[in-house]
């Protein structure tokens, strides 16, 4: 799995740490770290929770189009 740079940049844009997102979504910081590094494939529920925290849509953060990826 490739790194999720979209999520990382969205988090940086909101000036949030991994810990902030982890607390808001009810998971550990290591889980958020694993998602950003592409080491873990999150469930749709967790994806939605992350999107709500970051104010983005699922497409913005988790859709990989063939042209850019």
């Amino acid at each position, binding site marked *: 799995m490739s790194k999720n740079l979209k999520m990382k940049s969205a988090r940086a844009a909101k000036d949030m740490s991994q810990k902030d997102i*982890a*607390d808001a*979504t*009810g998971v*550990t910081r290591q*889980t958020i770290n694993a998602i950003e590094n592409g080491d*873990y494939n999150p*469930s749709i529920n967790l994806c939605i*929770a992350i999107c709500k925290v970051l104010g983005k849509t699922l497409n913005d953060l988790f859709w990989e189009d063939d042209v850019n990826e």
Partner: protein
Amino acid sequence: MNKKGLDERQLHKKNMIGNQMFLLLLYALMLDAGLYGFGFRWISYPANVMLILTICSGIYVFRLIRSNAYVGPSTEKERPFLKTFLMILVSVAVAGAIIILVNISGFSSNNQTGDMAAPILFIAAFVALAVAVTTIIIKRVQDKDDAE
């Protein structure tokens, strides 16, 4: 989301490691039974099973802590280092006291402790505690490594 238990990644890891360690336990016990059947007795009966159980559960806990799947998000803030250290000291003291008491009371004249089962269990417990301390150190190093 559930903040009391483990999160979804931790549950996934825990299930995966649990399955692997269960199979390891099964294979180790079958190997031990096979060796026993061929007449090779590396340790007498109660100690061999307990040692295999201790090793497998030790590896299980070690891998859980290493993959950060031992405590959930709600208890992550706690750092019970002092509590763990005191528990280790008390465990070692109790294990040592039991061996001394068994030797003093003359219980060792029976066949039950003539097979070195008590020292082996003491060593196994000590190794398990050493593993626990090592995992604490590994976890701290990992926390520093993957910090943003």
